[in-house]
Every structure is written in C-alpha cells, then in structure tokens.
C-alpha cells in the first residue's frame, strides 16, 4: 500500500529527534516482535503524539482520545508479530488506531442511541446545488480562535463515524482517496461519496465561520 504522507503542518509531528538519532522503526519492530517491551516503548514515544492527534480529530474529547490511543497501542503490541514490513510501521499503526476509533464511535452511537443525521443541512438540496443555509454571519473580530475551534468540534461531532473518518483523513491527515479507501475498507467511489456529503454538511454548519475569518 502507499505510505502515509508526512503529517500536514497542522497536525502534531512525530518526536523526530528520536527517529533521527535512534534505531529505525524496523529495528524496533523486530525487537518488539522478540518480546522487547523497551523497543516497543520507544515506538510509542515516537508516535504517541501523532496517534493522539489523529484520534482526537475523530472523537473530539481528550480523555476518549487518550484511552483510545492506549487501546490502539495495546492492540498493536498484541498483533506486532503479524507486522510483515510491507508498509511503514506508522501506516500499519494508523490502520489499527483508526479501526479502534471507528469501533468506539459506532459503539457509542449504538449505546447512546445517537442518530447522526447526515441529512442535516442537505434537505431539499440537489447534488451540486448551493447548500449553505442563510446563517447569521458573526463579525470576524468577534470570533476568537477558541470559538472557531469549538464550532469546528461541534460540527465534526455531528457527522456519522464514516463521514467523520473520511473528512478527517482527507482534510486533516491529508490522505489520498486510495489510502482512505484502503484504511476504511471500502471502494474509491464510496470514499468520494462520503467526502461529498461530509463537506456538504460541514459547509452548512460552518459557512459563517469560514466566510468571516
């Protein structure tokens, strides 16, 4: 599979100084496969920030992101013997983290009886038609960074797990369609369709934000 690209500038970088000076990932993986937990600990140190950021972008909650990152790394440790080096370690880890996160979002959706209304903002809108509601525009100077982030959090939280995953992978993690399809286990067409509706919905919810800042 294609390697995941370096993280976009807005995401939390890997602890690159460790990578530059220490053994490479594959060495650490090999040692981890032999049961060396200190080697795995080193891998965790390298990727914990990226993992946490990626999960946080999905769940929008610090505690949940912490717990899911823990679960993801634990799962990676348990299945490290199955890593064959066909992709980079982070690509392999990314898939595990994403699956753990999507499973959690789905579970919460079922337990909480939450219905993600993907049609919000899409009623009576034909594909290609203007979707933005007549939102009251807040003056730019009145919307602080904190408020903008809060609005983004709230808007993303209203997406279904599938739409959220697609938009986060594309817009925040900067993945290509093929990579998203592979990570999500669906077709390219499904990815593009999910992106279409996720964007429509977010545009409906955030137009006043991006038009005024």
């Amino acid at each position, binding site marked *: 599979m294609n390697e995941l690209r370096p993280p*976009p*500038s*807005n*995401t*939390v970088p890997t602890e690159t100084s460790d990578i530059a000076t220490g053994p490479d990932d594959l060495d650490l993986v090999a040692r981890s496969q032999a049961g060396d*937990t200190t080697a*795995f*600990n080193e891998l*965790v*140190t390298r990727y*914990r*920030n990226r993992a*946490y*950021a990626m999960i*946080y*972008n999905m769940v*929008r909650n*610090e505690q949940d992101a*912490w717990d899911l*990152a*823990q679960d993801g*790394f*634990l799962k990676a*440790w*348990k299945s490290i013997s199955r890593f064959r080096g066909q992709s980079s370690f982070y690509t392999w880890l990314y898939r595990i983290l994403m699956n753990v996160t999507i499973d959690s979002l789905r579970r919460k959706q079922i337990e909480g009886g939450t219905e993600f209304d993907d049609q919000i903002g899409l009623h009576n809108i034909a*594909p*290609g*038609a*203007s*979707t*933005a509601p007549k939102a009251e525009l807040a003056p730019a100077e009145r919307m602080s*960074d904190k408020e*903008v*982030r809060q609005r*983004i*959090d709230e808007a993303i939280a209203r997406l279904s797990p599938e739409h959220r995953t697609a*938009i986060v992978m*594309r*817009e*925040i993690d900067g993945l290509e*369609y093929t990579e998203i399809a592979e990570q999500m286990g669906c077709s390219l*067409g499904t990815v*593009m*369709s999910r*992106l*279409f*509706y996720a*964007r429509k919905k*977010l*545009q409906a919810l*955030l*137009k006043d*934000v*991006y*038009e005024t*800042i």
Partner: protein
Amino acid sequence: MKPFEEQFTAWVDGQLTGAELADFEKQLAEHPEAAAEKDGALKLGKLLREHPTVPPLGNPEFFNHQLMQRIAAETPRPVEKKRAFFWSLPRLAWAGAACLAITLALFQTTIPGGAKHIDKSNYFAQVVENWPGNPNVSASTVYSADDNVTVVWLDGLDYIPATYALNK
C-alpha cells in the same frame, strides 16, 4: 459513468483531468452555483487545516508508563514450573515397595520361620495331653530326628513304677 457526487468531489480536489474534466465542466453549466460550492469546500478544508483543535497530549511520560503497565498485565507470563509435591504417586509406590521389602527382610532375619526351624532343628517338643492320677504331673515329649528317638518327659512325677517302663 461516475455519479455526480463522486465527480464533484474529484473536481473539488483537482483530481479530474483531460476529457473527464471537460465533460464534467459541461455538466456544471447547468449548475451555476457549483463554483461557489467548490470555493466553499476549499475554504472549509483550509479552515480545518488552519485551526487544529488538538490539544497537546498531556503528561506523555505517564502515557507510556500506563501503557507499559497494561502490556505487562496482559502479556501472558511464561508458565512457572510448579514445585512438585515430594510424595508424588510414583514415589509413594516406590516408597511402599521399599518399606515392604525392608519389612520382609527384617521379618526373615529377626523372626525364625516355622518351616525353617523345623528343617534345621533336631528336636520337636510337644505337650502331651494326659490324665495322670496326680494333677501335679505334666508330660511332654522330645523327638530327635537324627537319633530317631522320642523322649517322654514327665514333670512332677516322683518316680516311675517299674511296670510303666517304656520300651523302645
């Protein structure tokens, strides 16, 4: 042909080229709002990228520590060899057999066997049931196999009358 949603997404992301792009742009002639939609989608992407909402991972060292503890707790430890109980079944069987052998050996060496005694002894003693006139008299016999002689021993008898003399 791809559905409109897929083509529109590809168009927004600059993934349509050549004939595909030209065909789609012809379709868009019927959707004058499409350009604004694309512009909105691009602004949305910029907004998401430029306003990261991710707080820094708090206490990263504790993150590792907690994870390592979970790994230690969930990693199966190598099975420790159980300290074997000394009196295992085979050992008990062997010990029993040894005790039996010792007992038999002691019995054989310390307590004379009847048959063995008979084989080696030249004498055989037997109390003879008798009805003497004097209740103080008891009788016993001693037999010598070598001499083929039986001796009658009368205890408590003062004398033997001449008429009671035994003949060989």
